[in-house]
């Protein structure tokens, strides 16, 4: 029962992230979509760490990976936000579909 809840949550987050990336036009929302997928991964790690618990403790490996990954995710989003700022300067819009000068 517990497992099903966690797994559902993980896949729900994963799908929402994809949906967000595919459908949303606002650049900030797209960044949020990436963050959501990363968090789905984090949640999965936490959940699996609890499955691999030995001697009453959850597996420290999964936990430590999550902490590192949150830091990395922060870095990625920071770079993304700076790109958004410059994109706004050039295109005067936050709509990602206006960014289509480069094609073919």
């Amino acid at each position, binding site marked *: 029962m517990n497992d099903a809840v966690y797994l559902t949550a993980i896949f729900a987050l*994963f799908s929402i992230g994809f949906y967000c990336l595919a459908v949303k036009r606002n650049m900030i929302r797209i960044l949020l979509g990436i963050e959501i997928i990363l968090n789905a991964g984090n949640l999965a790690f936490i959940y699996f760490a609890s499955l691999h618990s030995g001697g009453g403790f959850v597996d420290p490996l999964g936990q430590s990976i999550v902490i590192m990954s949150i830091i990395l995710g922060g870095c990625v989003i920071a770079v993304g936000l700076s790109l958004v700022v410059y994109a706004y300067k050039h295109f005067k819009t936050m709509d990602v579909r206006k960014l289509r000068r480069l094609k073919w």
Partner: protein
Amino acid sequence: MVIPTPLLMMLSPIVVFLLGFLGEEMKIEKLREGAAVVMSAVSVAAVYMLYLMLKSTPDGILLFHLQAAPPLGACFEIDMLGILMAFSVTLLTFFATLYSVKYMEHDTRLTEFYTLLAAMSVGMMGVAFAGDLFTLFVFWELMCIASYVLVAFRKDLWGPIEAGFKYFVMSALGAAVIFFAMAFLYGMAGTVNFAQLSDALRGQPLNMWLYMVFGMLVVGFGIKSAIVPMHTWLPDAHPEAPSPISALLSGVVIATGLYGLTRVLFLTFDPGMFKLPIAFLAVLTMTLGNVMALRQSDIKRLLAYSSIAQIGYMLVGLAAGTAYGVMGLFLHVFNHSIMKGMAFLASGSIAHETGTRDIKSLRGVGKMMPLTSLCLFIALLGLGGVPGTNGFISKYHLFSAAFGSGLGWLGIMGVLNSALSMAYYLRIMQVLLASPDEGFKAKEAPVLMVAVTLVMAVLIVFLGVWPAPIIGFATAASEALVNGLSTFIGAVLG
């Protein structure tokens, strides 16, 4: 365990940054360029030292870990395959850095540029050396973040920003999917260390979760290595980046994605399982890459599409699933890094001197920039797989590997595609050799840039007529991956 001296070159971005900063503060001209070139040369030497160390070990693997032993501590497990990959990376980084000294001299923020360049190279090396999934992921992100900024380095133009943002979204998505797949691998095996992972998972009956992980791995690494139809960011990002960065992106970054895919797939699955889907993707990738390249008008964009096609050829080796196929794959990775890197550098020189990347307006450049054009010709012939260049050697091995593993149709598709690709390579040559339009003037590129491309051209021809050493190297690498898996596991666990 003590970190060996050669691995200290992974600190090169910090050194470059400090020296560059110092140079700017103290107004010492060219200190940062000097530091960047020296550090990239030191990296090549360090990889060579690691190669020698590896040669002297009995079981063909070097193990280094920080703090605790695996599975808890992050670790490097360096085998011949990692060395080959790191060698391609550092070699091309060295050439690109040397080329940048002249090419980028009128840009600002150069300290950042060289720091990021070094960081990207270190990221790729870390991926090649990583001994567990998490180390791989950390260095993967280091490589990615550096490359996002480098693609959008000329932030005052709209092109790099648009391309950079698209590249960022796609690539970050890929990294996130890889991370997600790692979580599931961890869930099934309880570890992220390669050897233990392989011990636990390989040979197990396949279930739905493993198929899902397989799909995620292909998608995640495939986005980075531009497997069609996940390639869409590449034709934007590669041409818009500064030329040395294009060379690195096309030469080694996409190959690093392929390296990650190959490594993890071979650790987790039997080759028989992923043969068909990879073969299918290979055909799709090379065909679409070639078809799209046919009518490009932008020379760098054409080369970017050609990179997609070349990734398709490399996938043939992975689809073959044999040690011979993997040998062809990494032989082509190495050869392609030189050829495509040089093609981008040479076309960068041309764009630098003429101010245009439109192929139609490059008529007659061959007469005005003879050396650069000659280098570009050699690179294009190599990419087309003309005998006498290293491109021919590796393509030959790739396709014969496909035949050898019962995928004859794949080999035939590869040969057909190779023939098709000559069409657009020849078109470039024809335009460059045509008589120039009235009033069109250009002069030969600066000596340093020409020298870099010339050295690489010599390498292409040299490895084309004397491929024995690099084939031996690649064979050792593929043996380490495919046949040496039990030694690998034994060395880590035992």
